[in-house]
């Protein structure tokens, strides 16, 4: 007798067949336990919000506009909110009109809608390597082929992008778009230099490229600096994604996409097919937050928290890490990207880390091609500073011991780097 554990298998669409259970995701079930210092999830410090103000805002929405807030709304999102979101863009020096915008359920829905709008199975998207797990997830779920462009301290290497474009040309193919997180990139923690932004914009023109500019962290610079956006350089080639998750709260699930009009129209139709409309309730909470509260001050309060936590983490890393370990020094947002010496595999090491009560995200999750086994992402945005010290100490001790073990096991041979098959369809927050 044949026993079926999934009697629906033959009925599934091709795009979900590759989706499978992952041991890394299973390990995160332990990482969420309070005993573990988790540098894994990219979670904003929502406790730094003025909760009394949030309470007033929410109460006001229900009291004054309850019937509307609890009603269906339009697929593009409320015009009043879009006006406010355009103001948030202007605060960062990014051009945009309310009418260009579609309100989405977090930035993630925007990434998914854009993928659904442009990707046929097998289409190529060029993305930074490493890049956001959820960005890869949206692409893989739509059967895109993700090709990575390496990064350095100045962001995506434009020479490498040119090479990747040349390879595609030789194959007689064209990238559907270039996916980039130019500001305080997740997970690398670096920003694209101004010079490279101009080069990318110029390449987009000469190669007839579209660019997906994902900007969750642009307002979280520790010094309050802002960067010129790609949208301001080549507006007709850029689809821009913003979110209130980091400047207000991820719990309101409010993001947006700004796109050239014909694309915007398609995105509205796609979103109506997916979930009809965004929640009026949370839209009105965000709208009221932005019109009645000092939201710019709140962003400063957030960045002060993140700057302090990043300083504590960087100091702890200096103190605790073996000399062979390298990491990036973020100027904003949430992340430190850490590279370990050959022989240590960060996917394997996660089990030991969790046993030592500290968690991170192994590097492989940020690549679609199985590379990144010698890297990990540390997120400092959520744990309080004393927990950061504790967690980095545990991780440092672990890496010291692991290095000794690697030397003992490998003897004189040089450990090679190992690639693995990609993990598909996974998302680990942030």
């Amino acid at each position, binding site marked *: 007798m044949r026993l079926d554990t999934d009697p629906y298998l033959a009925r599934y669409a091709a795009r979900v067949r590759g*989706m499978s259970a992952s041991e890394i995701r299973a390990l995160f079930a332990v990482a969420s*336990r309070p005993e573990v210092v988790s540098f894994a999830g990219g979670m904003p410090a929502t406790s730094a919000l003025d909760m009394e103000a949030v309470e007033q805002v929410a109460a006001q929405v229900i009291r004054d506009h309850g019937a509307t807030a609890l009603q269906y709304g339009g697929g593009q999102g409320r015009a009043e909110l879009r006006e406010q979101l355009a103001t948030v863009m202007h605060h960062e020096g990014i051009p945009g009109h309310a009418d260009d915008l579609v309100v989405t359920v977090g930035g993630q829905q925007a990434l998914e809608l854009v993928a659904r709008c442009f990707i046929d199975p097998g289409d190529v998207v060029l993305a930074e390597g490493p890049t956001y797990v959820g960005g890869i997830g949206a692409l893989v779920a739509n059967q895109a082929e993700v090709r990575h462009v390496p990064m350095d301290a100045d962001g995506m290497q434009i020479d490498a992008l040119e090479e990747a474009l040349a390879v595609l040309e030789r194959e007689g193919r064209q990238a559907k778009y270039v996916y980039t997180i130019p500001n305080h990139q997740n997970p690398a923690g670096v920003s694209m230099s101004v010079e490279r932004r101009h080069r990318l914009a110029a390449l987009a023109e000469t190669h007839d490229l579209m660019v997906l500019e994902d900007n969750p962290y642009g307002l979280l610079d520790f010094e309050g600096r802002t960067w010129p956006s790609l949208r301001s350089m080549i507006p007709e080639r850029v689809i821009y994604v913003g979110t209130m998750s980091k400047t207000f709260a991820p719990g309101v699930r409010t993001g947006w996409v700004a796109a050239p009009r014909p694309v915007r129209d398609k995105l509205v139709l796609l979103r109506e097919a997916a979930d009809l409309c965004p929640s009026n309730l949370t839209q009105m909470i965000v709208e009221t937050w932005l019109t009645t509260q000092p939201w710019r001050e709140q962003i400063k309060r957030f960045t002060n928290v993140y700057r302090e936590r990043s300083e504590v983490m960087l100091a702890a890393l200096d103190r605790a890490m073996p000399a062979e370990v390298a990491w990036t020094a973020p100027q904003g947002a949430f992340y430190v990207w850490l590279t370990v010496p050959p022989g240590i595999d960060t996917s*394997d090491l996660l*089990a030991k880390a969790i046993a030592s009560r500290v968690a991170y995200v192994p590097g492989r999750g940020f690549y679609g091609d199985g590379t990144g086994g010698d890297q990990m992402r540390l997120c400092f945005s959520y744990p309080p500073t004393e927990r950061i010290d504790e967690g980095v100490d545990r991780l440092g001790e672990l890496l010291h011991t692991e290095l000794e073990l690697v030397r003992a096991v490998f003897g004189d041979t040089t450990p*090679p780097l190992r690639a693995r098959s990609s993990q598909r369809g996974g998302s680990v927050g942030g």
Partner: protein
Amino acid sequence: MSEPDRLSPTNVAVLCGGISLEREVSLRSGGRIADALADRGHHVTRVDVDAALITTLEQGGFDVAVLALHGSAGEDGTIQSLLELLGLPYTGPDVLASSLAWNKPIAQGLYARAGLAVPQSVGLSQQAFREMGATAAVDRIARALGSPLVVKPATGGSSLGLSIVEDPAAIPQAIVGAFSYADTVLIERFVAGTEVAVTVLDGEALPAVEIQPKEGAYDFAARYTAGATEFHAPARLDASTLEACTRTALTAYGAIGARHVSRADMIVDAAGTPWLLEIDTCPGMTGTSLVPLAAEAAQLPFAALCERLVACALRDAQDQS
């Protein structure tokens, strides 16, 4: 196997979760057991094992604890010791049987003594590498065991940390990886053949389940993604081979002194010899797990299987007192 008489309503604590690396699988097993027992009219509490465990159990007024704790504390005898101390009846093998099965090198020695075929293996501790230069012996081990070979942690389940290594140059990396899950690694001869799991339920073998992953090895993804693996029960083997598999499972169950339930994982080679890999004393009970599949093949619905385990625990506790 027919359904036993319905069990009278019982106050059950399903122990699951905890801080083990197999926490997620354990929560899935535990959730499924809890739902099934609740549907049968029992009073069920899910207990996620944490520092408050003893208080929770002392104050809960439970009749019995169902163990769905995978990984070290649930399977190495730790939780069993605590439950003995509290005098709370529990499902599955006792302290000694659990700790024997948990340590693969010890367990394999016992199985071999009982006359079972066990793949040749070498256990190496971290200490052996750090202080005794074991690296120098790896080539020798590789030559002795042939290629490919299996590198795995000496304790633990769900094939976490397990690699099948073809290229001898990749052995050190596989060893370092396995050390992430245990202080000792086993380097084992690879047996090619049919993967078979035999569940022993209260001293009686259920139909052997054949495991055939649709792609690659029976790894974590193949274990816990519904539909990723094809199962056949009984395994598509001739009668005498099936009989040998059953005998192997029952002998191993006896060798460690198991009770209530255990699952024997083996590989049947081309000559029809079942090579015993390990006994799992707290086997998975998820929707893709082998013990529930074996029970299904024996016409024993999942809820009845859970009740049967509860009944075993209550019976044995009564026998003792």
